[in-house]
């Protein structure tokens, strides 16, 4: 109730609207899910996480505010963020004053922002969604959270469609690989020519690889910590899939000049594939994007070799 009291002391012009919103706030905070959803469907959404923002866009809802939109554009690429969405600052420090002024009727946050929850609650009702469990299966979790999220937005049917569509895309990707030589793949981000980030268990990529029936050459759980490129020698007959990332400080020419990189069996045999940026914490839309890009890359080389 404190939140409402605070709002009434706000600027004169907005008092009435804010009061209406406050009622909605109580509704949504008390239970974002099913029961309240029909009564007041929020449509002024502030989405303070890029994976959640991509999911919301895929459900056919345009948020009013998202943090660091330039970063979203570089890393998530698809679905495209429409113009007119307000940039509310950096990912973990969204601008409270700006959010207060925008008066969203629902604020979606990842667990990382829970420490700011009480402050955010003063700008609008807050709901927490977690697309990236630690040690769990991100794809399964993202699907469940997408359904929960769609429920809160009164878009249950969109969620069913989105999930079905994603399954179809992954199945298509899998089907297109029927002639694939079954070599395992390393999925990596290149960092500086000597270091890579390597994706293993409990990542979105791993889940999609499993669904596509492609074996991951890296069988360990993945940390976010950088790994030396010598890690790529463990499975010599693997393919290397380099997922583009903004942190990549190298050019292909520089890599080619590196004696160690050139000596890797996979590199010598030309089994290196580059695909566009896929956000590893991007939820269901990123899973579909990864499946499509990966199958296209693997397929292209296959035909080229044949």
């Amino acid at each position, binding site marked *: 109730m404190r939140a409402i009291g605070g709002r009434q002391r706000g600027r004169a012009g907005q008092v009435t609207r804010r009061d209406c919103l406050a009622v909605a706030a109580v509704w949504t905070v008390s239970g974002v899910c099913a029961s309240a959803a029909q009564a007041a469907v929020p449509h002024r959404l502030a989405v303070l996480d890029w994976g959640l923002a991509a999911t919301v866009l895929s459900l056919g809802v345009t948020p009013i505010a998202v943090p660091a939109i330039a970063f979203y554009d570089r890393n998530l690429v698809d679905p495209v963020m429409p113009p007119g969405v*307000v940039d509310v600052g950096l990912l973990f420090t969204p601008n409270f*004053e700006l959010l207060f002024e925008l008066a969203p009727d629902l604020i979606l946050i990842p667990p990382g922002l829970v420490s700011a929850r009480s402050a955010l609650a003063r700008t609008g009702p807050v709901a927490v969604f977690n697309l990236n469990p630690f040690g769990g299966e991100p794809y399964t979790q993202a699907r469940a959270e997408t359904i929960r999220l769609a429920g809160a937005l009164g878009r249950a049917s969109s969620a069913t469609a989105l999930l079905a569509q994603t399954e179809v895309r992954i199945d298509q990707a899998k089907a297109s690989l029927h002639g694939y030589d079954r070599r395992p793949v390393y999925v990596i981000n290149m960092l500086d020519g000597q270091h890579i980030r390597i994706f293993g268990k409990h990542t979105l990529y791993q889940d999609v690889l499993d669904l596509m029936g492609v074996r991951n050459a890296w069988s360990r759980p993945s940390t976010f910590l950088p790994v*030396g490129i*010598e890690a790529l020698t463990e499975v010599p007959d693997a393919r290397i899939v380099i997922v583009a990332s903004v942190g990549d400080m190298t050019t292909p020419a520089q890599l080619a000049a590196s004696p*160690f990189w050139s000596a*890797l069996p996979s590199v010598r045999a030309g089994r290196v594939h580059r695909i566009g940026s896929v956000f590893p914490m991007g939820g269901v839309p990123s899973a579909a994007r990864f499946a499509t890009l990966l199958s296209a890359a693997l397929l292209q080389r296959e035909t080229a070799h044949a």
Partner: protein
Amino acid sequence: MLDRQAVNGRRSFPMRPHYLALVLAGAAAFMTLWIVQHLLPPAQWWQAVFHPARQDLAQIDVHFAVMPRLCLALLAGGALGLAGVIFQQVLRNPMAEPATLGVSAGAYLALSLAAIWLPGLSGSSRQAVALLGAVAAMAIVLGLSWRKGLSPLALILAGLIVGLYCGAFNTALILFQDKLRTLTLWGSGSLDGQDWLGVRDLASQSALVVVLLFVLRRPLNLLGLEDAGASSLGLSLQRARMIVLALAVILSAAVVSTVGVISFIGIGAPMLARMAGARTLGQRLLWSALIGATLLWFADDCLQVIDGALHVSIPTGAAAALFGGPILLFLLPRMRQMSRPVLSGGGRGFDRRTRAPLRGILVLVACLVGAVLVSLAFGKGISGWQWSGWRQMQALSFWRGPPMVAAAAAGAMLAVAGSLLQRLTGNPMASPEVLGVSTGAALGVIALVLIAPGFGRPVQILASGGGATVALGLMLLWGRRSGFAPDQMLLGGVTLAMAFTGILAVLLASGDPRMIGLLAWISGSTYLVRWPDALSACLIGGVLALAVPVQRRWLEILPLGDGLARSLGTPLASSRLAILLVASCFTGIATLVVGPLSFVGLMAPHMARSFCQSRPLPQLVASAILGALIMVLANWAGRVLLFPNQMPAGLVATLLGGTYLMIQLARRPR
């Protein structure tokens, strides 16, 4: 001479420099052999080192990765050890090292800017950029302290300001440019994945400097004396200092541009050499270089073993302090106190005006009131800049008030803590974070972020408070043996802080998005502060402040040196402990509220001297107000400058305060 022998005789830890170097080299060689033997059977070693088979991955690994890495560790360690001795000799401060004059920060910043504007930079052109940055930073430092005759104190202050400034600028860039995060790998010194080209460059550059050093050994020796002594022996101080410093800068810039920022060796190797019994300058140079080389080799080997076991790649620079630090911390209490810098003897930093203290303080208070008003009423929204009226201000004060109050309180507390420490230690480089309190607090929060991500504000405060208490407890336990001798506390704290910076660099390089939020907190953010935090900080700070006037006699006597203090009947250990405790509490509370920030605690005391006489109480009061003023302004600027993005107040404080101090240093002649 007699005195020196007496010192030697009383050392409780009988050691010779070559013991230490041999032990380190032996351990490192053992590990290297162990690592190589896992890669390749001994029969192929010779071939792998000299003519590797292009198809054999293991041989390629040994030839293009293991061997250059080993050579680079030895070369970089040696060069940094050497440079450290020169810096400490010229600046007459045991805490001086390559980073003190902003060399590494300058190189790092230059590389970050290059990564934004000239992406795809490689090999030698990257080295050139880093070298350029290092030399530019050094040139600015020399320019700023030129009019003060390049006196050690002026050089140190200018160096610290430029270094902090470049560092803050760089952190700000990393916050806003996601692609720069990869650069933190370089920024923490990675020896792996280098090739022979780097070895060749570093070897030739170091050899050149060593030859020149040999030529300049006489002036270098004299620079360790007090200014008057050195001048009377016919030395042109300014010119000698500049030439010798330039050599040390070239040496450290060569290392930085080849392998990145490697901390600790530059400060730890000279210290270890000294503790092991190297006395004359020649001995110190030789043994510091050798100990530096073997120490980095040892640290790097430890790291490779861990990397291999955990399948990660931790930057060597980050690990140097982690593995070298414990050795230093173990040896420090076992040695006699070394020569200590004298606050007044190093020449002037900021000129002191003999203004009436009261007037200076009144001016500061007026500025503070103005800053508070602007900070509450003036800001940016969707429709641009706006002055808020009274009613609007009341609504907005929920967002603007607590961060501002917390920033002011934290600034004041850190400034007081810094003043206390600088008086206690007599070292102008002392700042609150050397107490280990902020390091502990930050580690507590990092552990929390890694272990249990979704946590609330109270848990965060609990974690950082717990970390701070544990760290302080350990530091005090460790310092008890030496009666809390200032130099040891400082060096111990610096070592801890360096190890922490290493850990932070590793986490940042990990690219884990949670870490960027952490970086904001570590840079001193008032973002999450609300009224309960802000008000309790003020309250506790106010109560603590009552303890300061009680200590004012000690604060006047302790900087004069142990002998004088003892003869005036000051209980050394207990007075030091009392001051340390008060300073730690101030630092701890401030860190809990806004995160660890170093600039205000380091610089506000120096700035206060230019406003008031240097008596303890007026200086403390002026420092507190200045600290509050800087932080209030920084908090406001961080909120509006890059709207809607918010810059951590600690960063902005460094950028704003740094600019002001650089102007001050450059403008006023002696």
